Each structure stands twice: as C-alpha cells, then as structure tokens.
C-alpha cells in the first residue's frame, strides 16, 4: 500500500495531523520539541506534521512530513533486536516497542531523520509513523489519508500510484517532472508530486542507492565471520587443553618414575 501526496492540493487544514494524533492516542498538549528554520518538525507526539513554505513567488505551500516507509528501510536494517520490521503484506515499516532495547541506532540510520525518541519517559520508546498498519491490514486507508478532504492524499497500490503521478505530471505543465520517493534511497511507499522544486520545500536530496546497500557487501559476511571466528577460538581452546593435558600426563609419568 502506498500514498501519493499532491502538494498542490493541500490547503494546510492539518486534518491529517489531527487524525494521526487521534487514532494513535498521541498527546495534543505536548509542546513542540523541534522547530527548525521556523518549521515545526516531527517529535514523539507528532508522527506527522504540516510545514508551511513561502516560495520564491511568495506562493504558499504546505508539505506533509512523516515516515516515508522505504522499500529498503535503513532503520530496520540497523535494528539488531528486530524492533523495526517492514510488514510484508502492507509495506509499512512498523515499530514494535516490546522488542526495542532503546539503542537509537534507527535514528542515526534513517536518511530522513524520521524516528524520534520519547525523551520525557521513564522507559522511552522510539516514535514514528506506523502508516496505520492496523488499518491497512483491514483494508482501510491510513487515518491521515481518510481525513484529507481536498484529495491531496490518496492511497493505493504503489505501481498504480506511480503511474497516476506521471500521468498528472504529463497532463499539467506546472508540475515538476519528479516523483519524490519513486527512486529516493531505493524508493518508498510515500510518493510526492509538486509544482515547486522539491529543494525549495525542505525535501532532502538523497542518493537513489538504498542505504542498506553500502553495508550489505561486508555486513552480510558478519554471521559467517562470527561463526568462523567462534569455531577458530573453540579449536584453539581445544588444542591448548590437549597440549596442557598431555604435558600434565607427561609430568605425572615422569614423577612416578622418579618415585
């Protein structure tokens, strides 16, 4: 399941972020933790935010920000306790607090700096958009998509949405010829189209190579290396024991002879 965000259709009502807080039981009273360059950023009680931008032509644009749900999520690959997993059926990158050890490697790994941490909690968890995986698995749209009245958010099959996005771009010359999220870090479930260049709207320029690719070549050898190393050490121990045992036996024999 994927979502296509048409930035030209957003009027900034923030119904999506309210629907998110309502559905996920987040704290409405929590003060914003991160404000960067005048833009409200995600935090542990804001899994999605609407950011306001004034373009070079003084046009007003609103950009929805949340986890993009990468096809090859770096956060999930960084997590050694499998607390972040990509759901096979829905494509959502889902966080399981019961498995989390709180190391925050995911926060470092994410190319978009999406995962946030509950700094105020005694037993903190990581916080990020779950793409309403519980709704997706029932066949419902994510809460934010359901709440959108202007059609700025539509959900559906990823391939079909990509096709649709390119059709929209081809039919209207105002659009920038770029579907953000189609190829970025290997592609994501969330896709954006816009009439304003994405750099002007705070979108990060990232490589098309999945982050996981960089480490795959050697990290994939780690299990074999670790197993080999353990075998090697075990062998070494066994050998040392034998040498020592033989030496002891020899010593005992010599002692007996002396006696």
């Amino acid at each position, binding site marked *: 399941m994927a979502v296509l965000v048409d930035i030209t259709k957003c009027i900034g009502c923030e119904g999506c972020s309210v629907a998110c807080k309502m559905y996920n039981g987040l704290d409405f009273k929590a003060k914003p933790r991160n404000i960067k360059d005048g833009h409200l950023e995600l935090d542990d009680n804001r899994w999605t935010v609407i950011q306001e931008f004034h373009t070079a032509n003084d046009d007003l644009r609103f950009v929805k920000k949340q986890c993009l749900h990468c096809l090859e999520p770096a956060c999930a690959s960084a997590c050694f306790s499998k607390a972040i997993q990509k759901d096979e059926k829905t494509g959502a990158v889902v966080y399981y607090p019961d498995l989390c050890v709180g190391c925050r490697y995911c926060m470092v790994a994410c190319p978009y700096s999406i995962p946030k941490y509950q700094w105020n909690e005694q037993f903190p968890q990581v*916080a990020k958009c779950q793409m309403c995986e519980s709704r997706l698995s029932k066949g419902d749209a994510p809460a934010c998509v359901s709440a959108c009245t202007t059609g700025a958010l539509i959900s559906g099959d990823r391939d079909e949405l990509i096709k649709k996005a390119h059709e929209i771009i081809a039919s209207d010359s105002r659009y920038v010829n770029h579907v953000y999220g189609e190829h970025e870090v290997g592609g994501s479930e969330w896709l954006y189209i816009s009439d304003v260049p994405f750099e002007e709207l705070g979108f990060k320029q990232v490589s098309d190579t999945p982050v996981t690719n960089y480490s795959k070549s050697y990290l994939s050898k780690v299990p074999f290396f670790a197993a080999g190393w353990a075998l090697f050490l075990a062998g070494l121990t066994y050998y040392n024991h034998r040498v020592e045992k033989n030496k002891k036996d020899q010593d005992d024999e010599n002692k007996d002879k002396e006696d």
Partner: protein
Amino acid sequence: MTNKISRRKFLKVVAGSGVVGFGVMAAGCKGDPSGAKGWIPDQYQGKGDFPVNLKGRVAISQDNPSIERDDEKCILCGQCVEACKNVMGVYGNYPLPLKNEVACVGCGQCTIACPSGAITEKRNIQDVLAAIDDDSKHVVVQTAPATKVSLGEEFGMEPGASVGKKMAGALKAAGFDAVFDTCFSADLTIMEEASEFVHRLTKAKDEIPHLTSCCPGWVKYCEYFYPELMHNLSTCKSPQNMMGATIKSFYAEKKGIKPENIINVSIMPCTAKKFEVGREELQVDDQRDMDYVLTTRELAVLLKHKGIDLNTVAESEYDSVLGESTGAGKIFGATGGVTEAAVRTAYYLATGSNPPADLFSWQPVRGMKAVKEANATIPGVGTVNIAVCHGLENARQLLNGIKEHGSKWQFIEFMACPGGCIGGGGQPKSSLPDIKQKRIAAIYKEDTSSAKRCSHDNTEIQSIYKEFYGKPLSEKAEKYLHTSFVNRHDRLF
C-alpha cells in the same frame, strides 16, 4: 553468605535470558506495534476514498485575526467545512494550488457550527480587561444592535430578550468609561449612505448597483472574489468604524482627551470585525478607528469574570453625545434592515418629507428568504429596484448571475451571515430552530416602539453634523467616515 551470586551464575542468567529472548523473537513473537491506541470518527472507517457526507475541516492560518482552533477539541466532524462551503461559499470556491493566502472572510460561521467548541473567536478579553485597569486610558465601548437581542441568552434569558439597557448598565459596572450605542453610528451611516446612494442614482450612474458595505465579511468576500464590483461598494465605513473615528476626533476634542489615550472597544455579533479593525485603510491621522472587538460570547465571559449578572444588574441609558438612536439604526441587525433604514432616509433626502407608512413596515425586505426583492417609488427619483441577500453562498450565486446578465437592481444589500448580524459568527450558540426569527422579531419590536424611526430625525445626529461634519459627504465626512477597499483577488487566483 550462602546466597552470594557467583560470577559463573550471573553469566549463566545473562546468557540464558539472551537465548530465551532470541528464541522468542525468532519464533515470531513481537508484541503490539506502537500507536493505534486512540479512536477516529466513524466516517473515517473504511477506504479513504469512500464518499461520506461530511469530513475534514477548514484551514485556519496562525495569523487569522478572527478565529482560532484548539486541535485537541477538534473531532474532524466536518461541520466547519459544511458552513464554510455551503453557507458562506468560501471553501472550494478558489483554485488550487494556493496562491499566497489561506482564504477566510472571518465570518465565524464555523465557530457557530463547531459542536465541540474547537473553533472559537480569537479572544481579546484579556486585552480589554488590561485596558480597563489602565488608569491612563479612557476606555470607550459601543454595542451593536444585534448584541442587544442576544446577550440575554448567555445569561439564561429567553431568546429575543431585549437587554440593551441592562447591557449598558453592565458595561458601566464593568468599568468602561463611556458606553455608546452603535445604533447611533448606524444612523450616521444611513445619513452618509443614503446621500451617497441618491448621488449615485442621479449623478454617478456607473456606480449603480449600489452595494452596501457595512458587513466586513461580505466586503472581504467582494475583495477576494468580485474585485470588479469594488467600485460599486458604498465607500461608507461600517457603523462600528464611523463610531470609532467619531470618538477619536469629535468626542476626544469635546472631552479634551488625546485620541492616543482612548481605547475603543466594541461589542459585536461578529468575528469578521476583528479583521476589519486591523485594516490599514481604517486609520485617520495614524489613529486606528477601533482597538478591540469583543463578540457577544466574549462579553458574556467578561461580565461573568467580573461577577456581573445581567439578570440583576441595574439598567442604564447610553451615554449622550453618541448615544441616541432611532428605530432605523436598530434594525441594522437584521437582514433587510440596512435597506429599510436607507430607503426611509433616501426618501426624505429626495423629497424633504418622511416616507409613507408602508415603508415603516416594509415586509418584502424582511424575513429569511435567501434573496428578497422589492421596489420603492421615491418622488423625483423614480422607482428603485432593490435586492437583499444574506449568506455568502447566496451572494455568490446572485453575483454570478449579475456578472452574466447585468443587474436589474439599483441597490443590493449583502450580509455575510444568514439572517444578518443577528445570526453572526460571534453570537451565542444555540440549536433552537427559530432562534434567528426570535432575535429578528425582537429587533423589529424595538423599531416600532421607538419614538423616532428615521435616522435623520436623530437629534444627536443633527447636532453632530451642525458642530463637526457639516453635511453628509462633506470633506470632513469623507475623511472620517469613508474608506477605500483592497483588491485581494490575486491572493487567491
């Protein structure tokens, strides 16, 4: 000690729990994902693109001077969209992508429609309380006609209770230095607007149809959507601002108070007024006409904060110089009222005598019909065709017709809110079906029980022209009582 933990035992426990943990994880146990602990209204169940009756909400920008919203109270019921789109014709009537503004005329109908109280007026109660407590400031308050027949509801009175005198008493008890009546400046507006209309009818025919401009929601709507009709708008300021400008000039001079030491507060049934008072065009000699606007609901909060009960407070008259009013000024609060009042005085201005009795109970312009049509025959001027329209969605349809076929009317009254000011966005909230009719009935009852029913008969109006403004449309009147408009079309289109 016998139960001392040895190093070996400790390592066993750690390694053991690690193995168990890994086993649990490898077996597929992962607990619940985070989130999904809350709720969402029923219309959001199912696939996102299922058609539903009502959903979503209107956009309210941070710097909107009229309204604000508490997200925690918002239940995404969609009632605000319904009001904004189908009653006021704003939402959905501008193209996307946005240009440089989030469209809002400030009418506040969404605050009335919002069932959870999430959308409210942007409150100025604290500002007004601070001004009252500041001894160096002379705080003047004026009350709009529509608030006099609705404030009682906030204190448990029957809908349509006339509480003008009680309100004046309550405002004096709350510590305001002078209490004036916006009905007075409504009479002043009629003097100017009727003169302007007669002038346009006879000498400036390109400015016909004459469109009224006392409703700030409608004025902003016209600036947004029909800038080509801006020259048809009456240049008269709204009664609120005529009062404000008069207080900071005529009254200040008379009382020997510096205009900068006067704080002008108004009690309005309206949230768009909060936008209006910030307009740069509504300044004379670098003095803002008005400083703060309180809605009827805000006034109720302020009075309760001060411990004043409207039921028991002593009645009081409005203060003189700017306190006398006629029945014509009072009916401004109902749809059709401005028209009826203007025609009474236009008749007098054209003929020199008061109009016939049927123009004092002019049924065609009264009532809740979306667009009302009437005609009045004024000797010397001829027959004037008039339309009265309330609710901006009705206005949109009417104006689109005019754009296509031209106007058969010479005078059109527009009020943004259904029913006129009595149904304003700052009025007490109620779910009674006939509440607007009751408020309207109360307003017309005030008119018929008034001794004087024409604006030009107001003796304080006569003396203010004698002492200060000269005559309607004089140079001084143009300076203080007339304004200009801003083309806002390209902010949306």
